[in-house]
Structure formats: C-alpha cells, structure tokens
C-alpha cells in the first residue's frame, strides 16, 4: 500500500469513490466498495500517518486504509465501538491533512463516524463529527437529514437538552417530506413539556410523512394529553378518526390507553366511553395480534436489514426499539390478569346510560351466566337494567336466579326488594309482601328495612288491610324518621286513616308532615290532603280556606287541576255557585277523566241557574278539545242530553250508541239503550252491539222479576255469539248463566274480561265469579288467590272469602274477614249473620264456648229474617249448652227454637226436635242463660 498515490482515484474512476459510502439498495456491501476504493490506490501511505500523529496523545500506528478497512468491517458486523474507534481515529488524525481537506473523505467519513460514535454512546465524538460534517461538508439531503437526526439525538443523550431542541427544530425545518421530520417530532416531543409537545404532535398528525409514525404520534399525543389532564383532547384523538386495523397499530398500547381514557370519560360522556371501550381487545386477541406484529416486524427486519444504507441505519435503531418495546409489552400482557370481563361490564353500564338498555342487558347476561368473578355484579346490574326497562317479570326472574345462585350473599336484600317491587308493579301484592318479609329477615340495614316496611304497608293498603297497612307504615317511620321514605310513610298513614274515616287523625298526620322541615318535598301534598280531609269532614268553610291558600301558594304543581276541582266541589256544596263555576272553568288538565268531572259539574251548575246554552257550549268545547275515550261515552252523553230538547237528545243517544256501541271498552251504552226511544232494528250486524241490546233485555226481565226469561237470554249470549265478540257486560252475563248451570265453559268468559278489559267496571265482577267457579270446583286455593286480586273487596267477595278461609281452616284470616264483613255498610243481613255464625264457630274452636254462644245468640236475636242462619245458630247454641252440662237451659232454648215452625223444613230444626224428644223436661229453677 505504501507509496501508492491518489492518481487512480476520483478523476478516472469517480464511480468507485462515490461507492465508498453510498451503496445503492441493490448493492449489498459498502465495505467491498471501500476495499475497491483502497485498491484504486487512493490512500496516502502510513508514514504520513505516523508523522501526523506525533503530537497526539495516542499514537495511531494503523494506516488510513487499515483504519478504513477496520472501521468498515466493524460496521458490517455491527461492532460499533470498534467502528467508532477506527473512524474517530481517522477524523482526529487526518482532519488537518491535505488528504482530508482536498478530498471527499470528510464527506464520507464524518457521517459514519457520527453514527458509529452515536451507537457506541460516544456522544461527544458523535457531536463533534456530525457538527463538523454539517458545518462544512453537507451536500445531499438524505445524508444531511441523517446527520442532523443523529446530532440532535446525540445532543439529547449528552444532556444538552436546549441544543438538542434546536437541532430537532432545524431537522424539522430541513426535512421537508422526509419521514425524518416525523421521527424528529417524536423524539422532540418526548422531552418537551406537554403544552409544547401536544401542538407539535398535532402538527404531525395533520400532515404525516409516515403513516406508521403517525400512529405512534397519535398514541404519544393521547398519552401526553392524558397526563396533562386534557380529557377532551384525548377523546378527540382517540375517537374522532378511525384506527387502522389492530394488526398495523400498536395493539396493546391502544387497548390499554383506550381503557384508561374510557374510564375517565364514563362519568360525563358514557357514549364516548363506550366507543373507547370498543377499542379494547380481549387479552387473547391482544396476545395473538402482538405475536403477529412481532413476527411481521422481525420478518421485515430480516428482509430489509441487509439492504439498508447507512442513512437508513437509523431505522435499524427504530426497529430494534420497536421490537424491544413490543416484546416487553407481550411479556407484560402474559402477566396481566384477565380484564375483559371488567371492560364488558363497563360497556354494559355505558349502554344503559345512553339509553340502550337491551345491549346492556345482553352483555350483563353474558357475564352473569359465566364463571367470571364479576358474575355477581353483572347479575345485580342486569336486574337493575330490566327494572329500568319496566320489564318487571324478567327483573324478578333474574332476581330469583341471583338468590338461588348466591343464597348467602350479604347483599341479598337488594334483589329481594327488587323482586317485591316487580311484583307490586304486576299487582301481585300478597307475594310482594312475602318477598318484603324476606327482606326484613335478611338484613338490619335501615335503608332496606324502612323500604320493606313502607312497601308492606303499601301492599296491605291496596289489599284493603288497613290495620296492617297502618302498622307497617308506622314501623317504617320509626325505623328511619328523618328519611324521605319516612315522610312518605307518614303520608300513607294519613291516607289509611282517611280511608278508614278517621279523619281527625288523618288531618293531624298531614299537619305533622307540614311541620317537619325534612319532609318539605311533601308539604304541598299534605296540604292538599288536609283540604280533602276537611271537605270529607264537612267543615266546608275551613276546607275552602285551605284550598284557597293552597292554590295561592302552589301555583305550579301537578295537583293544581285536582285542587281546582276540589275548590269547585267545595263551593258547590257551600252554594257559592259563581265561585264554583269559576273554579271548574279554570281547570286545565290533560287528564280527560278529571277534565270531564269538572265539565260535568260545571254543566250541572250552569243548568241549575238556567244557563243551558252555556252548559251545552262547555260540553261541546270539551268534546272538541279532548278525544272522548270509550269509557266516557255513556257519562258524557248523559251530561249532554240534559242540555238538549228530547228530540235532539235522542239523536245524541242514537249517535253515541252507533259510534261507541261496537267498542267493547265503552261504558254506559246499556244505560243509553234503555232510554233509547227508537231502538235500532234487531238483530244488529255488529255482535258487540247486539250483545249489549241483549244485556239490556236481560236487565229489563230481571227488573220485572222474569228470571227464567233473563236466564234464557243470558244463555243465548253464550250459544249465539263467539266469546271474543261479546261486550264485557254480555260476557259477564253469559259467564254467570253458565256458572249457574255448572258449565266448565264459564271461566273462559270471565277470563276474557280480565285479560282483554282489565280496566272495565265489569272486571271485578268477573274475578269474583271466576273465584266462585274455582270454589265450586274445589279449587279453593285458586279461588282465594283470585279474590285477593280484586282491587277492592265487596260484601259478596268477602262472603266468598270467608267461606273459603273457613273451609281451609285459616281461622285467623277468617276472623278478620268476619270483622270486615260486619263493618261493611252495604253487607246484607244474610252476610252479617253468616259472619256472626262463623265467628261463633271459630271462637268455639278456640275453646271459648261462652263467646261463641254470644255470637250465635246475636244471629237469632237480630237476624230473624235469615232462616238458615237462625236455625244454625240455635242448633249450635243448644249444643254449647249441652256441652256445658246446662241441660235445662239447653232444653229451654230448644223449645224456643221448636216453636218457630217456619224453620221446620231445615235439618237443624229436625235435629233439635229429636234431641228434645229424648231429653227430660227442664227444671224451672235451672240456669237459663250463660
């Protein structure tokens, strides 16, 4: 090598020198070209080397070609320290030499020196070489950008943050469309405060040079914004632009970042949180995607690495860094516990919050039925979701399933309460009470126990068990007196007393509510109820005063229309017609029934003061304003015809019958038929209307005591009409006629009314008769259950209930029913006598013959008109006396009984007669009464 000159380089074979450092992508190895360069005889002899470095600290014995050879070989083997050593040595030893200055060596060597030094963490040397290159020798863009990037990175690693920042800025400015710009931004942003990094990254995203780097930048931006607490920015960048498929993006990073952002968004923006959660993949998919990504990256690296030029060597670094990060993520992923069930449950909650509860329920069911540790929570969430959907039966079903699955769960009170509430919504009050009692047995937490007591009271109220209702409401109040539910309980306590005609007590309770500041939300309601209570007591002046005060104080209140109506009613009773008319005229409500009540009262008043025209006008206005529902057809027509002459009235009647008579839900049609002067020609084509005419005929026959004819017509309803075409009134008549002849077809007619017309006034009678059918067919439990579904108990239903309860030996319930029947204003003597006799039988079973005697005695004392009951009572009393060994009294009573020969057809009479005949004459001094 020594002695060779430069004569062969540059001038003759320029391509060879150019090939020194910049092999094409197809040309594999620049060291070979470098060796060619050496062979071309470019290099100055090593003797110059020896002389040139005489003053340096380290004597460099290697020649320039040796150094180049060593450095190149080291670079090829990625032995960066060795390469750095060689090239730095060249730079240090030759930078003053002509061979350096007059050639393009610096242009070629300096970038490599910088690169190798950078890779070897020799940052000072790297900076030196690269700076020198950029200052004096930079020509082509690619190498410049490469050098700038290395320089900036070296400055950063060397702790020269400000200089690095400036270097990156310069790189960005110079990069143009090169991906180096994006790389520079990513590096820079890492070391900037968020408020500087964010705009930089957003700039990149607005106009990315490399899509892959853009994804990195997007993730970096979201992470930075998240640390900066800028949730809105996180949301925008996470969600507003679609992500490429996970196979291309940073899979795990995106999933975990999305989960964190979603958790922060949940409270205020559940819709966005849901979108974010949908970016999270299950662990198995993440693992799969991550492994694919690593495999793909490794393959890419294997394929292109040998072809990378020096400039593209920075990608090598990026690849290595990416690979290391992805593999670290993969390892972390393997160690991460399963999380997707938590995410699924949160998604479900988001769905529910954005009012898409079905999707929420679907996900909750999925988790609840799995082995997930979140199954329990999912179960409870699912119950709540179905309740929100008002799907009471499913909510209850799921709650039952929860109780079955987690019988010892500490929170079992909640699902039990939900079950009860669902049962209440479905009007199954007795089962609801059972569920609520289970709540009380399962917990002592006052929030639950107070609620349980409250709803028990509510159910008892609806079942008309007022004593039990009062007791439960009182328990609720005592459990948690300061709570809102206690206020509600107090209100209902007042309502119970009101219903039971204990008006003074009711008034005081409402007053108590008005005086308690913690129940201020009930003050208006309590005040209104006080007004109604005063009205009920007949204290009309005070009622009017209260009502006036209420209307003044609560101008905007849901009860306003009712209060106006009440005010009108009070003034009507006080004879204050003008005030009453004004009150009714001020009633403004969308409740058509309340509006009709007001207009009905108003028209009555107007008619009473001879203002029929005005009354008619008011009624017509009402008719135009409100779409008359079928259940008001009859009542409205009756109100209207009061204002009309007979001819016009008949027209209205005909029209109403024609318009509403074919609608099974309309009411009052039969009454209209009965006052119709020219009935429509029969038979009528519409079966519903025809059946109504038949019912009218039946009622006429009954009023004329033509019962066989009435019965025949009732049976014809069953034989001549399809059941589903009958009006409810006709269906009831048909069912009753069939029940009388013990037909098994009777229930279908009653069921039809109950199912299709539950709000019809005939529905309670249908239930009562259905219960009678069950009782007749020995299905006593079913009969009792049906009776319990009645909205209110009548003497007839109480009578049947009593018979069933006694038959089932439910003596306590039977006793209560007896007491109710006895207090019923409209109970018949027969029913009261039955109640007394039953009380006697129950008491006698309780070993209290004297009380029993007293009950039975009242029957033959007070209810002489009820022969069967009287005879039964006599018979039992005689038995009681015999059992007490009071033979004289027994015989005397028997004689009294036997004197009533009108009872001789009854078997008790015959029994008493036989008993008497076999007994001796009574002694006159013997005791005659207990």
């Amino acid at each position, binding site marked *: 090598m020594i002695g060779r000159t430069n004569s062969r380089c540059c001038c003759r074979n320029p391509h060879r020198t150019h090939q020194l450092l910049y092999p094409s992508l197809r040309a594999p190895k620049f060291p070979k070209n470098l060796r060619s360069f050496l062979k071309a005889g470019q290099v100055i002899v090593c003797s110059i080397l020896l002389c040139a470095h005489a003053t340096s600290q380290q004597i460099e014995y290697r020649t320039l070609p040796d150094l180049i050879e060593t450095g190149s070989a080291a670079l090829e083997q990625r032995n960066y320290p060795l390469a750095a050593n060689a090239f730095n040595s060249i730079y240090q030893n030759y930078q003053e030499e002509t061979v350096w200055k007059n050639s393009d060596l610096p242009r070629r060597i300096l970038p490599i020196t910088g690169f190798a030094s950078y890779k070897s963490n020799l940052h000072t040397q790297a900076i030196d070489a690269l700076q020198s290159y950029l200052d004096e020798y930079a020509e082509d863009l690619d190498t410049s950008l490469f050098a700038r990037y290395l320089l900036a990175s070296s400055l950063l690693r060397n702790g020269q943050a400000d200089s690095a920042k400036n270097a990156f800025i310069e790189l960005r400015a110079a990069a143009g469309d090169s991906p180096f710009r994006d790389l520079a931004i990513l590096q820079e942003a890492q070391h900037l405060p968020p408020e500087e990094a964010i705009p930089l990254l957003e700039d990149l995203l607005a106009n990315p040079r490399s899509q892959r780097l853009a994804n990195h930048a997007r993730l970096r931006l979201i992470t930075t914004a998240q640390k900066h607490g800028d949730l809105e920015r996180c949301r925008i960048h996470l969600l507003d632009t679609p992500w490429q498929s996970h196979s291309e993006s940073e899979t795990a990073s995106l999933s975990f970042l999305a989960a964190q952002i979603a958790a922060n968004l949940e409270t205020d923006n559940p819709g966005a949180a849901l979108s974010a959660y*949908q*970016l999270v993949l299950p662990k198995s998919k993440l693992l799969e995607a991550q492994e694919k990504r690593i495999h793909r990256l490794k393959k890419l690296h294997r394929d292109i690495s040998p072809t990378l030029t020096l400039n593209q060597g920075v990608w090598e670094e990026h690849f290595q860094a990416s690979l290391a990060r992805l593999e670290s993520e993969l390892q972390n992923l393997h160690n991460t516990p399963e999380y997707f069930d938590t995410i699924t449950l949160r998604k479900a909650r988001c769905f529910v919050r954005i009012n898409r509860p*079905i999707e929420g329920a*679907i996900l909750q*069911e999925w988790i609840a039925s799995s082995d997930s540790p979140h199954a329990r929570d999912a179960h409870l969430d699912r119950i709540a979701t179905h309740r929100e959907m*008002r799907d009471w039966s499913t909510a209850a079903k799921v709650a039952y399933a929860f109780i079955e699955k987690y019988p010892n769960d500490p929170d079992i009170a909640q699902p039990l309460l939900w079950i009860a509430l669902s049962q209440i919504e479905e009007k199954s009050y007795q089962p609801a009470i059972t569920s609520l009692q289970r709540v009380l047995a399962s917990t002592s937490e006052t929030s639950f126990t107070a609620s349980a007591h409250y709803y028990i009271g509510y159910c008892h109220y609806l079942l008309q068990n007022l004593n039990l209702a009062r007791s439960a409401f009182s328990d609720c109040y005592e459990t948690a007196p300061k709570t809102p539910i206690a206020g509600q309980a107090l209100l209902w306590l007042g309502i119970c007393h009101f219903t039971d005609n204990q008006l003074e007590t009711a008034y005081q309770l409402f007053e108590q509510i008005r005086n308690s500041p913690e129940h201020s939300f009930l003050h208006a309601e309590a005040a209104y109820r006080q007004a109604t209570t005063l009205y009920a007591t007949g204290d009309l002046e005070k009622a009017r005063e209260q009502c006036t005060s209420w209307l003044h104080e609560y101008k905007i209140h849901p009860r306003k229309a009712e209060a106006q109506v009440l005010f009108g009613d009070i003034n009507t009773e006080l004879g204050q017609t003008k005030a009453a008319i004004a009150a009714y005229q001020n009633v403004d409500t969308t409740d058509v029934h309340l509006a009709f009540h007001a207009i009905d009262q108003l028209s009555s008043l107007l008619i009473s003061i001879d203002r029929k025209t005005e009354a008619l006008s008011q009624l017509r206005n009402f008719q135009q304003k409100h779409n008359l529902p079928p259940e008001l057809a009859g009542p409205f027509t009756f109100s209207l015809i009061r204002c009309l002459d007979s001819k016009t009235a008949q027209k209205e009647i005909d029209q109403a019958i024609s318009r509403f008579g074919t609608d099974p839900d309309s009411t009052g049609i039969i009454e209209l038929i009965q006052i119709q002067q020219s009935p429509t020609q029969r038979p009528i084509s519409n079966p519903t209307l025809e059946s109504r005419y038949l019912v009218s005929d039946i009622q006429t026959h009954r009023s004329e005591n033509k019962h066989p004819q009435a019965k025949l017509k009732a049976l014809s309803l069953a034989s001549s009409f399809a059941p589903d075409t009958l009006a409810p009134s006709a269906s009831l008549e048909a069912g009753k006629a069939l029940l009388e002849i013990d037909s098994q077809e009777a229930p279908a007619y009653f069921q039809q009314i109950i199912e299709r017309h539950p709000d019809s006034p005939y529905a309670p009678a249908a239930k009562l008769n259905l219960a009678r059918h069950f009782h007749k067919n020995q299905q006593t439990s079913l009969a009792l259950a049906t009776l319990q579904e009645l909205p209110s108990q009548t003497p007839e239903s109480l009578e049947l209930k009593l018979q069933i309860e006694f038959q089932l030996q439910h003596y306590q319930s039977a006793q209560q029913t007896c007491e109710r029947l006895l207090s019923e204003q409209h109970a018949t003597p027969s029913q009261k006598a039955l109640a007394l006799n039953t009380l006697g039988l129950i008491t006698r079973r309780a070993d209290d013959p004297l009380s029993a005697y007293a009950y039975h005695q009242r029957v033959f004392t007070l209810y002489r008109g009820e022969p069967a009951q009287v005879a039964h009572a006599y018979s039992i009393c005689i038995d009681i006396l015999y059992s007490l060994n009071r033979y004289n009294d027994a015989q005397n009573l028997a004689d009294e009984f036997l004197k009533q020969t009108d009872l001789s057809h009854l078997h008790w009479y015959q029994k008493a007669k036989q008993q008497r005949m076999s007994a001796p004459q009574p002694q006159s001094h013997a005791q005659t009464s207990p």
Partner: protein
Amino acid sequence: MHRLLHSLFLVCPTILLADQVDLRNGESITGQLADMKGGYVNLLLPEAEGEAIQRIHPDQILHLAFDDHETPLQSRALTRAKFIPLLSESDSKILLEHLSILLLKNQSTQALRLAKTWHPKNEYNTLDATYRNIIIESALASGQTEEALIHSQNWLKQKPPPFEHPQPWEVLAQNHLKNGDPRAALWTSLSPIAHGNHENESSLAKLHLLSAEAYQKLGYNTHANAHLSLDQHSLLTIPTQLKINP
C-alpha cells in the same frame, strides 16, 4: 389385477407423478395422489417403482404436497377435496377459494352442495367460520332460506356464540321479523352489536338496519332512527316493556 393396472397405464399414459407424500418416519414418496378409499390414501406410483398403487394409512402421513400449481383452481380444489382431513391449512384454503368463486359465478347450489360435503371434514378451527358463512350465503343465494336458517341456528348454538360473524344473526333476526316477532328480532340483532368492537363495526351495518326495523315495528322510532344514523351514541328515551330475549 396386473392386467388391470397395465390397462390403467395404457388409458392414462401421461400420469403426472410428482405429488409427494411425506411420512412421519422421515421418508417421502412421490407419485400421483389418486384418492382416499377404505380409510387409506391411494398413491399412483411411477412404473419404475413396480407396484402401481401404494396404499398409505393416514396415521403414517405427515404432509401432502400437490404438484399442480399450474392447474386451474377448480381442478386443484377437487383434487384436494378427496384428502380434506390430511390437507395443510393453505391447501384447505384452496377449497374455500373455489367455493367463493362458485358463489361469485352464481353457482350457489353447487357451492352449497360442496360446502356441506367438505365442511364436516375440515380440520381447521380457523376455517370453520368461513365454511359456515359460505354455506349460509349459498343457501340464501339459492333461495333456500329455511336451510340457511337451520345452519344459522346451529352455528349460534356454539359456545361461545359467534358474535364476530354477523351473518347467522342477520338470518335469524330476519326470520323473526318475518314471523311477526319484532322483540325477538331486536334481541337477536342487538346481540352481536353489543359484543362488537371497532374492528368489526363496519360489518354490523345490516344488523343495525334490522334493529331499526324491529324498533320501528315496536313503535320506538327514536331508537330506530338512532340505529339508522351514524351517531349511535346519542341519548334516547328509555324503551319501555321490552321483554326478555325469547
């Protein structure tokens, strides 16, 4: 027997004998893969090997390599179809490619017939969903909606259900709508939507349409419109009385 084999050679004078059977013991045999009968793979050997047909038990076989890369897809598929349980995954995909082409060419009846024959023999879980989708699609394309429904229902019985594949859900939901049961249609169409993520969102478009139709029939127009629009997460009124998935 030899005469028969000899005549076989006369009839088929130009047998291609470059298929390869790699055995588990490390050996490889070259010949022409003929078929699989009686539980054995039949390999036609070159005349030089002596025995004309070699019967190999599948348990001995590690890999089959077919030398027919230049032949049309149909021919490759039908050749491989004889050896489905022994095919590599890439060879198995050729069958599915062929079925897809048949569908594209509106030969849905044939696609259905072949798919139903090949699917039960498929060894790769990764290809199961593709088979099922092709079966349902070809049944629908050939007007056999009842059959499509049966296949959909069978697929949906899997544990876990295939939430990421919308087709069976679409078929079932459509059927519910046809039968006048919009509630059932709604719960069916919303199931994959609920379980969906951003990766498969674009494939759920038809399910959103079916949900919208079901909501409309149930009288929830706001919800229907929400499913028709892009903005799926706007606030809606609570749907009332929407009962459990039947």
